[in-house]
């Protein structure tokens, strides 16, 4: 589904991402983990075209999409959520998701017709799926943190993606909220046959649902594979135990 090879990005002299390669098979749930500053978000930005890579390739469904602009990439079946809150703050929850539908279904250039009457059913259905139907009329910027994350998920799903890239989907959540969020994500992935790639630094979350894990440290891959293997990898333990001290 998604193959990344040799991605690299430096800022000045600082190597944020250094020769990273991994692949995510269709239907898999994969995670990229690593301590803060390991380069996870930068890596995501490289994959989704928000940043231009210095080197390396990104191949999606057999097609080279390295450096393709974000607005083109999301039309190829890639959905993404962001680490920072990335919603449309002054629009309502409903309008947030509706906008995504309008754009994705190709009506974005239409100067006729009324935007607020388009795709209402689909939007309502999606809001229901992510658990936000009661909040449909609320202003997005005023939602709770967890609510905004749910909304972000909704926006990403409105693009009818085949692969979903989630950047720290449970950041800032309590333990209970985290469990709920992960359960929701896993369920939606199953229901819609999504391939999932997410970053996290909460270990419990990762080990509960991920099938393949890639560990990043200071921009390089230090381990990759099935959860059990990664958990026992001495390098990984050193990095994490070392970090905790």
């Amino acid at each position, binding site marked *: 589904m998604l193959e990344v090879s040799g991605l690299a990005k430096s800022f000045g002299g600082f190597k944020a991402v250094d020769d990273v390669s991994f692949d995510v098979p269709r239907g898999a749930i994969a995670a990229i983990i690593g301590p803060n500053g390991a380069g996870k978000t930068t890596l995501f930005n490289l994959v989704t075209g928000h940043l231009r890579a210095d080197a390396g390739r990104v191949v999606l469904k057999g097609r080279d999409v390295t450096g393709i602009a974000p607005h083109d990439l999301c039309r190829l079946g890639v959905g993404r959520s*962001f680490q920072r809150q990335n*919603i*449309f703050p002054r629009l309502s929850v409903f309008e947030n998701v509706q906008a995504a539908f309008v754009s994705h279904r190709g009506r974005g250039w239409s*100067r006729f017709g*009324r935007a607020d009457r388009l795709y209402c059913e689909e939007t309502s259905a999606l809001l229901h799926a992510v658990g936000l139907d009661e909040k449909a009329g609320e202003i997005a910027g005023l939602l709770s943190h967890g609510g905004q994350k749910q909304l972000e998920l909704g926006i990403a799903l409105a693009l009818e993606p085949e692969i979903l890239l989630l950047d720290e989907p449970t950041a800032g959540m309590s333990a209970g909220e985290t469990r709920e969020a992960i359960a929701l994500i896993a369920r939606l992935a199953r229901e819609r046959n999504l391939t999932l790639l997410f970053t996290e630094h909460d270990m419990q979350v990762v080990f509960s649902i991920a099938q393949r894990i890639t560990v990043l440290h200071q921009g390089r891959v230090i381990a990759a594979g099935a959860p059990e293997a990664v958990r026992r990898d001495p390098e990984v333990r050193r990095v994490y135990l070392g970090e905790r001290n």
Partner: protein
Amino acid sequence: MIRRVPWALIVLVAAFLVPAVGSRYYTFLANDIVIWALFATSLNLLVGYTGLVSFGHAAYFGIGAYTTGVLMKKIGVPFLLAFPAAGLFAALAALVFGSFCVRLTRIYFAMLTLAFAQIVWAICFKWNEVTGGEQGMPEIPYPDFAWLEAAGQWLPLVGGWRTAEYFYFTSLAIVAACLWCLRRIVASPFGRMLTAIRENPERAEFIGVNVRRYELAAFVLAGAFAGLAGGLFGIFNRGVFPDFAYWSKSAEVLIMTLLGGIHTFFGPSVGAAVLILLNQQIVSYTQYWPLILGTILVVLLFAFPGGIAGTLAAAFVRLTRRLARA
């Protein structure tokens, strides 16, 4: 219930009645307001709906005015052709300038729009052969209204007005049509995409919106309508002058837009009306209009950031909520 009252229609009808019930002076004021309302609303397409703050919107106003002026005065082209040409040329200029401007963000975008506007001003100021240079082009002819007079023989109400009043009706009809168009545009899916860009350009990119292309489109549309406003203004003002494109004009229209409220469609029109009426009132008492305007602006910025329309709209919302609960 308040919302269902067709305010816009009522205002339009009332506007048509001004020459009948008011003096020549009121018709003059109303004509002024109507043209600036279009100018300000065109700017708001950029500022309020797309989140792009332009400091050089007067460039397109000026280009529109000069286009119509040159065509009508120097070449004798009839209004029916000269007027749309204003919008066309302004749109072309907006396309060229805009393609550079939308590559920049925030303060750089604003500075470049300013630079382009000053370039337009400089050209108008110095290109004596075409634009009349510093003197401008006085005495742009009115459009030919003989056909209206003739129609007035057998249509009631249409005949017997002065030329200035015919021009007012024309302006009013044109502006009403333009505002209707703009209203449709902002409510359309395209308009919704612009709003998404304003709210969060990065997110908009990732729902498939080619932000630069949309911003350019908005820029061109805004420029086109500003050009149409300019085309009308040149005739109304009985002359076209370089200061139409000067940055202080851009500041004036920006203030109007803000005064009325950038988050409602008719806010800028309201701002135009209030500012022009206030100006006329105050100028008769004192020469220190800038002082008053500046003070109003300061009060606005600190106390009423939503502008007049925004503050009123918020008050309405609170009122209707209270009524609904009662």
